[in-house]
């Protein structure tokens, strides 16, 4: 359980990072959100063998990390933490796709391996970009941006509530698990027979709490809309930020920049 609690503290760390005051932090959340979305879409839409086209995309996360002074090791650890998902998705590619694609003389690389690495790289890029977005803006800031961008409010409210009550829920769960472990002296793992009612109990408590929260909201005049007043200014800086990064992503998506660069340099010499 300690692991989960620690991970939650990590989420709080991200919030702490988001309270920084560099120029990138102060940018309107909407600008960062849109840029991140364009980044993710262009990266994901790259062909599965086009590893060289992915190289220019590394510039964005690097620029953000340097510009906002984010802790690199922390981010890499977070990416590593979720990497098993990507590994599982790509793990069978080398077995299924054995067509040789790359021949380095001593070693021929099959299409499966190339697509496997391309999945890993795209995964690292997109997850990294999403983490950077949260570190620069904070979870709530992202929600506000969604709201301002006219995302249907039920979705935004769901996200806000998820974030607010995640902590309460985990604390409740860890209290229950502690209570169980203090009374199960054999200290073996939790048996299924115990786990199921514990989960049920947690669900019931959650429903109870949801009901109380709803009542408290009704008592303060809730009518289905959450209104948040948060002045946001989408100015000159935001527009240039979104425009230039998006332009760069789209260029990098459509043209193989590294090859162009290579030709250019080869042409000069």
């Amino acid at each position, binding site marked *: 359980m300690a692991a989960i609690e620690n991970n939650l503290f990590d989420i*709080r760390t991200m*919030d702490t990072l988001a309270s920084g005051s560099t120029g990138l932090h102060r940018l309107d959340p909407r600008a960062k959100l849109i840029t991140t979305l364009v980044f993710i879409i262009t990266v994901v839409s790259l062909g599965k063998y086009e590893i060289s086209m992915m190289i220019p995309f590394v510039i964005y996360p690097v620029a953000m990390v340097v510009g906002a002074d984010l802790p690199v090791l922390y981010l890499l650890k977070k990416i590593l933490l979720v990497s098993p998902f990507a590994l599982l998705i790509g793990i069978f590619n080398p077995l299924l796709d054995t067509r040789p694609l790359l021949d380095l003389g001593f070693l021929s690389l099959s299409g499966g391996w190339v697509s496997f690495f391309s999945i890993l790289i795209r995964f690292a890029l997109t997850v990294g970009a999403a983490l950077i977005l949260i570190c620069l803006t904070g979870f*709530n800031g992202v*929600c506000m941006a969604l709201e301002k961008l006219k995302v249907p409010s039920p979705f935004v409210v769901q996200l*806000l*509530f998820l*974030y*607010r*009550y995640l*902590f*309460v829920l985990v604390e409740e769960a860890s209290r229950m698990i502690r209570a169980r472990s203090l009374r199960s002296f054999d200290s073996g793992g939790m048996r299924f027979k115990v786990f199921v009612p514990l989960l049920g109990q947690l669900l019931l408590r959650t429903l109870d*709490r949801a009901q*109380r*929260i709803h*009542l*408290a*909201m*009704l*008592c*303060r*005049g*809730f*009518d289905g809309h*959450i*209104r*948040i*007043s948060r002045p946001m200014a989408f100015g000159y800086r935001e527009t240039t930020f979104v425009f230039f990064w998006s332009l760069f992503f789209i260029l990098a998506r459509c043209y193989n920049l590294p090859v162009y660069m290579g030709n250019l340099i080869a042409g000069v010499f």
Partner: protein
Amino acid sequence: MSHHIVKADNLYYVYPDGTRGINGISFTITHGESVALVGANGAGKSTLLLHLNGCLTSAKGNIRIGDDTLTSKTLKAVRRSLGMVFQDPDDQLFMPTVFDDVAFGPMNLGLPEQEVEERVIHALETVGASHLRNRPPHKLSGGEKRAVAIAAILAVSPDILVMDEPTSNLDPLSRKRLIRLLQSFEHTKIIATHDLDMALDVCERTIVLHKGTITADGPTLDIFRNEDLLLKSGLEKPLRMQEYNPVPLNKKKTHDHDHDHDHHHH
């Protein structure tokens, strides 16, 4: 001003599972009065409170808040004039920051942003929590959460304050601060509590509930002096009114302990 009256007339409530909640309750609370609602666990205090602003609807009888009898039509007006502070501040504080949370009520009233901000600042000042305005609620201490929950209600500027166990889970100093705060309010107050000492400080009138009915209703001091009544309702005198009989702890431990089980002999 007589219109901040709270009148309950013969309320009954049975929970869906058949448990009796409250059983024929009537009282009238006039403007500016401060009333403590005391009783053992399960006496029906919280159930009664939830009736006052229409969170629960009684099977029989009715409630009047001010000039309105509580119906689905007057619900909105009633909830505006009667503010309710819930027992667990975590249930009440759900917005991303303290400021947003206190602003939630006024925003729902449709006030202009300038006024919302004024009200939030004023409410936070009143409870002494101005410095918390940009903090996320889940990072606050218990006492701070409670103060913010109260500010969130004050920002709607209700005439009547209803509170469920306001002093529970507070450390002694936070509790004392809260009592001073409650004393400074001029609202009509209805406070459900087990903290009889707080009731003694804040409320001049006390209603005793037992198993869903009112067993006594009168001046707080008179009720707390009536030991029989308190005992029957599952209560005891406020600690301050109890005599202090120091029990020599050491002696008790070594010689006087109860022999309700045999000693183990090894």
